[in-house]
């Protein structure tokens, strides 16, 4: 049907745009020497990924991606970069020339291997995607899975978050102790 093919073409166009944006911003992250620009490029990367998730019918994950990743994590990054100021500036590379070449070779090899596998259709497992229901990827479905089949993952994830929060507090508290010691000296 023309409608179907129009929808298909639309999806294709969106896909190409999002994929291109994704890859370009990824390269940009590792290329800029100014970390501020790198963080901004990463935000772009996260946004295009959210679009791709939508194309894959993962609505809740896409929303979470934008809210949590781009909204919270990247803001944290930008706070730290702003705090560090000039110290965050880093030259591109140096000191280990062999490392750079070897790294490019290794990463390239990895990429080639994965592409080959995928191109070979992984022995035919990747030929036809399954049919999905309307509720696939909806918040209700995710919630149901989290609270029934994957309850353990849910709980453990919350524990990990707690641990990270504690870690963050501890890492930050050293300086406060040093500051308070300084105050004691001043008072005495």
């Amino acid at each position, binding site marked *: 049907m023309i409608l179907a093919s129009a929808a298909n073409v639309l999806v294709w166009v969106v896909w190409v745009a999002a994929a291109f944006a994704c890859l370009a911003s990824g390269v940009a992250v590792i290329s800029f020497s100014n970390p501020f620009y790198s963080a901004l490029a990463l935000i772009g990367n996260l946004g295009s990924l959210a679009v791709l998730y939508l194309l894959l019918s993962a609505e809740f994950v896409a929303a979470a991606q934008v809210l949590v990743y781009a909204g919270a994590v990247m803001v944290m990054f930008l706070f730290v970069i702003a705090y560090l100021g000039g110290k965050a500036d880093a030259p591109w590379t140096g000191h280990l020339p062999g490392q750079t070449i070897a790294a490019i070779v290794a990463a390239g090899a990895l990429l080639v291997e*994965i592409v080959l596998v995928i191109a070979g259709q992984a022995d035919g497992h990747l030929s036809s995607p399954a049919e999905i229901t309307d509720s696939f990827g909806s918040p209700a479905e995710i919630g149901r899975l989290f609270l029934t089949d994957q309850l353990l993952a849910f709980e453990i994830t919350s524990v990990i978050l707690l641990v990270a929060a504690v870690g963050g507090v501890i890492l930050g508290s050293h300086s406060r102790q040093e500051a308070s010691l300084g105050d004691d000296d001043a008072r005495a």
Partner: protein
Amino acid sequence: MNAAAWTCLLLPLGSTVLITLLGGSISRRAAGWISTVSCAGAFAAAVVAFVVMLGRSPDDRSELSTAYTWLAAGNFKVGFSILTDPLSMFMMLVVTGVGSLIVAYSLGYMDGDDEERRYFAYMSLFVFSMLLLVQGGNLLFLLIGWGLVGLSSYLLIGFHHERPSAVAAAKKAFIMNAFGDATMALAFFLLIQKTGSLDFDVVFSRADGLSQTVLVLVALGLLGGAVAKSAQLPLQTWLPDAMEGPTPVSALIHAATMVTAGVYLIVRTNPLFELAPHVQELAAGLGTATLLMAGLIALVQTDIKRVIAYSTMSQIGYMFLGAGIGAYANAMFLLMVHAFFKALLFLGAGIVIHALGGEQDIRRMGGLRKLMPKTWLAMLIGGLALAGIPPLSGFFAKDSILAAALAGDTYDRVLFAVGIVGAFLTGLYTFRMLFVVFGGEQSAYVREHPPHAGHDRLVNWSMGLTVAVLAVLATFGGWIQFAGVWTPITDWLEPVAKPLIEATNSQEAVASIISVAVGALGIGVAWWIYSAHRMKAPRPWAVLEHKFYFDELYNGLFYWPAVALARILDWTVEGPIVNGSIVGVAGLTRRTGDWFRALQTGLVRVYAFALAAGLAVLVLVFIAVR
């Protein structure tokens, strides 16, 4: 009878354990009393058993009492058993009787020594071990007792462990005895394999069917043990060195009991020896050679205890001669009276040594007979008995052996001739010692250190009384058997050891007259050289002074090759291979560690690269395998 026999065996063991456990909480003298009373108690138990045995008919006198099965391996069983028969009864009486006298003497001799408790614990251990040896109901327990007396001997020779010479002597004795233990063990292995048992009656009855080779090997193994324990040729070098131990130890272990264990062994296993007659003849020959050699060496010894030690070696040679030609009862008779007069001689020498404050060199003694008349009398009795002068005990025993040798074949008669020469030497060296020590004028040393009577009544009584008892025994002890006329000992032992040779009355007479004459001749020569004219004795040949160079021979045969081999092994094996491999392993480990350390660059990027590279390789592998 069995209860008495077990009591006799276990009392000394009990006293050892008691003294050991009580340790320092009892006084030193109390330890001595415990040991003495236990040995006396053992003697009393032995007498009780003896009386019971007397009441039985001669065929019924043997009893085997088993406490429990000590070892069971397949068909082979050995029980913790003791055998009470005429032969073991005889030995029990001798061991506990003479033993308790000597332990009582030790009460006085060792008085004041710091380690008196240890001494008495060891003495009780020895008495127990010797009783186990003679009472053992099978060959295995005989061997256990054998080993334990060797241990007690080691402990007691090395009693003064702060003296390196004593320690060396103890080791020498133990190692040479270990050689004998090994040959005996080999013989026992053969017996187990061929007869399946170590019980006396089973072995003796089944020995008939064994091949001559096996019988000769077994007899040789037993002879090896006997020769080692009794210090006969060629394993005799440990006995003179063993005089480093305290004098009562020399009396008990190295004169009266332990060294006679070899004779006991031959008499006990006489059925086996009779089936290998050449080995038995060899035993007689070794004994004879020993008695001659020991007699010659004793002529030049200057230490009073060593003279007596060599005379012990010589007399045991006579016992081996007797057992070797089949005159078992005569050999055991000599064993008994030898215990009496040899212990008498040793203990008397101990009194002399004690009185002179530890001096043992006879060249520094002299003229003691007026100062110590009672000791002089006791030693004189002992010396006369040793030389075989009637009516003292030695005469009856020794010449009965010589008469039996005369009654035998040509080989035996050769041994008889050598025995006669030995009798001459015996008289000569014994009275040389007696005249030098007690006769003549007082030497300078004696004048400086006059023998002092101790002030402690217990010491005086213990040493004096026991020596007096032994003197009485040495005088009258031989009257229990007069060959040809009255032979209770031969009859007593007949169920166990039937003599192979019996001398006729005329042979007895001939042997007696010759041996007495020769002995008296020896005494006369000694008197002429050492007492009457006090002339300078002829310079002894170096051979005699060096004890026929046996020590040097064994040194060269065994010690130096072992040292050389050890050095060679040290250079070739220990250094490069053992040490080198350990050091090499350590070095290799360190070098490997260093190499691995180079991987730890500390740079995160390098580690991350390693991860990525590894991942790439792994994926490649997975693809390829798929």
